[in-house]
């Protein structure tokens, strides 16, 4: 019974919470800057407004351009079903789903990049090239982090790797887990195009990475992209929360409270990082990503030593 309740709460949260995270990040940044900032629910209003608009599609584009936002949203939503929010809440779970998780993001990114290239604008092609380049450095870091968890739990299933056994490993393999945690946070910032990798607020063409790829989308398609991006942030945030706070209290409500606090905490942390750091120069971005890879790799080395 509790398993089903858990799964229902999981699906409800995965649908409703993601835009709130964007709101929390924006609010944190506003507080740091001494402004009042947009209301917490502003991303929801934006989504509703976008969904009510009409779309404009360039005549040079094909179906690929229209498929881009849909695939990005669907892959992110599927990923949100794979990752457990509390110890055993994942509705979809099977052996080897960690590979699926990584490549769902890959597929979403592939289609976003294709849609960007489909417009025929050189500017969007540039953004796509940057996004793909950086993500091919972020992916190994993510995978090596997963390897650490696989090695610890002896399972290839996300809900076991991030499940109830993880808490027992913190006292013994805490160093490796902490390294993975830092590495994954860097990956989170890179994959969701936050500062120091990319500034989600900027429209300065020379520095944009992700934002430039979605410039030609409008109306509901752009809404889907925003919502998909929020879901992606939610999934990565969940991975961080599960890794950092794997402890279980035994009661349903308390477990979900821990998760809720954790995911909001991650959003606040992103806001703090964005307020206290400047964007990295584009040529320095790969160095930080390689450093994230090295942290994860170091975690593995410490385990198998």
């Amino acid at each position, binding site marked *: 019974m509790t398993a089903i309740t858990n799964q229902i709460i999981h699906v409800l949260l995965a649908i409703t919470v993601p835009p709130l995270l964007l709101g929390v990040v924006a609010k944190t940044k506003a507080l740091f800057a001494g402004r009042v900032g947009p209301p917490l629910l502003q991303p929801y209003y934006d989504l509703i407004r976008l969904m009510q608009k009409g779309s404009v599609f360039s005549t040079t584009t094909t179906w690929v351009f229209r498929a881009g936002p849909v695939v990005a949203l669907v892959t992110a939503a599927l990923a949100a079903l794979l990752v457990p929010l509390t110890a055993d809440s994942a509705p979809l779970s099977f052996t080897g789903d960690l590979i699926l998780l990584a490549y769902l993001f890959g597929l979403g990114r592939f289609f976003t990049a294709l849609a960007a290239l489909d417009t025929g604008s050189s500017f969007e092609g540039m953004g796509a090239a940057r996004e793909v380049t950086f993500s091919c450095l972020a992916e190994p870091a993510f995978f090596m982090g997963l390897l650490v968890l696989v090695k610890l739990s002896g399972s290839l299933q996300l809900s076991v790797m991030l499940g109830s056994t993880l808490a027992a490993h913190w006292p013994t393999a805490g*160093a490796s887990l*902490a390294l993975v945690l830092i590495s994954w946070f860097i990956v989170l910032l890179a994959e969701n195009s936050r500062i120091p990798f990319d500034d989600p607020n900027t429209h300065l063409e020379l520095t944009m990475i992700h934002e430039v790829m979605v410039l030609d989308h409008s109306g509901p398609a752009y809404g889907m992209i925003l919502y998909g991006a929020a879901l992606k942030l939610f999934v990565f945030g969940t991975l961080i929360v599960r890794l950092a706070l794997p402890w279980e209290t035994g009661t349903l409500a308390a477990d979900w409270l821990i998760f809720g606090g954790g995911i909001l905490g991650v959003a606040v942390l992103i806001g703090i990082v964005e307020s206290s750091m400047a964007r990295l120069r584009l040529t320095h971005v790969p160095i930080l990503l390689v450093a994230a890879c*090295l942290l994860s*790799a*170091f975690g593995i*080395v410490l385990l198998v*030593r």
Partner: protein
Amino acid sequence: MSQYIDPLLIVALSLNFVALGVSRIRAVINAVAIQGMLLGFLPVLVHGQIRLRGMLLVAVTVLLKGIIIPRFLIHAMREANVQHEVKPVVNFMSSLLLGAVGTGLAMVFASTLPLAEEHAGTLFVPASLSTVWAGFLMLTTRKKAIMQVLGYLLLENGIFLFGLLLLEAMPFLVEIGVLLDLFTCVFVMGIIIHHINREFTSIGTEQLTSLRE
């Protein structure tokens, strides 16, 4: 107490990578200073209760490596008016990767060494070897004299870490002597940096090849 040693060493190891991967000299100075201070506190953790000479060693190390030398280097940096290592011989990405390979090899090598019982499981030897390697990399691949001094400091941190294994056996005078050596070296190098800067209006050491009598 000893369960804190490995996490501390991991932080120290991560600082090696900061030092290898960052171009801002100020950041590298801070990283090396923090590493020096962390390592300076290690004797307290290693030996549980330490006597007066141990305390004195900790105090002198932390003061020297964490405060005096970094202050001095920052002063030298301001004097010479350089902020960045612009183009090292081996670029930052490659030095990070080389550092990682060195750390991996240090782990492998350390596991083959016949160590004393109480040191066998810890990260002491791998951390020490890889810090030495990182220092050596910085010493040889950076062009700015001040970065080379920092590489030298990193190298010394590694050696200090190795020396901790022998803290019981090593006379106090030797430790203090090493620290004094270090201080004098940095001091002399500071003066050299000043002179290179005045002679060539830059502190790139590649200029030194054009020196004549």
